[in-house]
């Protein structure tokens, strides 16, 4: 799949942007006053930046409000609703924390849960794609939620929680990559079922329908990512988890914490790039790739 920068940016930023309110809303010792204000502001900026980035991917962003209509069937539509509800409730929770020094858990708990539900809905957009064997199973929801909560813990200064979560999420990621490789190999869709010519003999793509590129080949028959996949996976793990853990274990300093956040975000960006670039769409089979 084509790793569109707008979608990678969206999923990285909104993952963190909804991970922070999830931790703030559900975790008991929530900060109050100005600290709460800054945390919530950062969360809202990240989540909004992610949502704005996602509209760059649309052909007609001016029609985006129509995406709220099909929540009964479409995960993208559900994601839009959940995001708005989560941000609305967390806004009310934030008003209590910042201005009234009160923890309105009636808003905080559902706000936190809806933040997680938003991330889950995002992941289901990919998981539902039977056409992409790498995505069509448990790993996108588990990974998206795990990254989101771990990132949220880091960004809200829950250092001890982050130190537990980071190695754990790293291990889950390694298992998921192995499982994704296995699923892709085990896919029962191949050039024989795609063409229905397999009963005659070995099928080989002889000539594509067009000599140049097309929307299909640009969007779904993307192949560059797999060349350096192994190296990029190591880089992703080092940046997203290993380096932040190391920085957090050093004596606390705001510079170190900021570096840990930057390193984590860079690692997540690499991971999300791989998530798309490595994914193989079955339409590639028609092009013999």
């Amino acid at each position, binding site marked *: 799949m084509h790793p569109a920068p707008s979608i990678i940016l969206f999923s990285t930023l909104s993952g963190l942007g909804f991970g922070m309110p999830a931790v703030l809303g559900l975790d008991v010792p929530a900060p109050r006053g100005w600290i709460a204000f800054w945390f919530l502001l950062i969360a809202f900026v990240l989540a909004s930046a992610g949502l704005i980035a996602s509209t760059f991917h649309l052909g007609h962003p001016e029609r985006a409000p129509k995406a709220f209509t099909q929540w009964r069937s479409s995960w993208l539509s559900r994601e839009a609703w959940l995001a708005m509800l989560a941000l609305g409730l967390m806004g009310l929770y934030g008003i209590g924390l910042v201005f009234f020094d009160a923890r309105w858990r009636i808003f905080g708990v559902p706000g936190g849960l809806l933040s997680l539900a938003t991330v889950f809905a995002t992941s289901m957009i990919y998981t539902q794609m039977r056409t992409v064997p790498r995505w069509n199973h448990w790993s996108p929801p588990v990974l998206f939620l795990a990254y989101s909560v771990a990132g949220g813990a880091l960004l809200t200064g829950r250092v001890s929680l982050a130190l537990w979560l980071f190695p754990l999420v790293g291990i889950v990621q390694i298992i998921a990559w192995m499982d994704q490789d296995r699923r892709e190999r085990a896919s029962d869709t191949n050039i024989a079922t795609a063409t229905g010519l397999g009963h005659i*003999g070995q099928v080989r793509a002889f000539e*594509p329908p067009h000599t140049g590129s097309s929307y*299909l080949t640009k969007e779904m028959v993307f192949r560059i990512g797999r060349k350096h996949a192994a190296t990029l996976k190591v880089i992703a793990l080092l940046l997203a988890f290993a380096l932040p853990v190391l920085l957090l274990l050093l004596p606390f300093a705001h510079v170190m914490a900021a570096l840990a956040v930057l390193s984590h975000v860079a690692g997540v960006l690499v991971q999300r790039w791989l998530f798309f670039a490595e994914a193989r769409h079955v339409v590639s089979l028609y092009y013999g790739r």
Partner: protein
Amino acid sequence: MTSLPEYTEKTLGLVIDLDTCVGCHACVTACKGWNTENYGAPLADTDAYGADPVGSFLNRIHSYEVQPETGPAQLYHFPKSCLHCADAPCVTVCPTGASYKRVEDGIVLVNESDCIGCGLCAWACPYGAREMDPAEKVMKKCTLCVDRIYNENLPEEDRQPACVRTCPAGARHFGDLSDPDSDVSKLVAARGGIELMPEQGTAPVNRYLPPRPRDAAPEFDVLAPFLEPVAEEPKGFLGWLDRTLERIG
């Protein structure tokens, strides 16, 4: 509505004969022509005369080489357009309701004024039947020429999809596949028509007629008896001439 209908009154679709298609791309041109001038946004091309021409098409022809265990490789041309699936995954992923499947005839269409161009339906389709138009930025797909098949301004023989009407080899057939007595259903039954990627669970409507077994190459040439090799040694007058000339030479 992005939910799929429980049933459709008709199941209109195409039956494509892989034995007959000659790979001339006439259907591609006819499709592009009709669908650029009629229903919906025109099918654009960008950089059409430049180094990197890209355009949207609703029908494309692949070619495949099949190597049997014995004998020479066989070449098949493979037209591919929307299969108007009964369980169309492109419809249910649509966040705006722009994609829908019609109850009256099962045609899968896009309401272009509701399409936000997110591209999710193209991801959900295993066949590559949907393409984003490079100029209009809305999703384009085969309409089964919905503006031809019911069009009473056209002569009756033209009330079929442009690709079917134009095919010079008669490799494309159009009809109601839910009616067991329709010509297309009979053709599918007689020739063992198949679904593409049945394991994807899309329940496609269009059927492909697999190539009939090819004749084995004959072991001898039928003209061989008439082409006996000429005599090595000339006889009669030519033989005398040959011997005489050799004596002189």
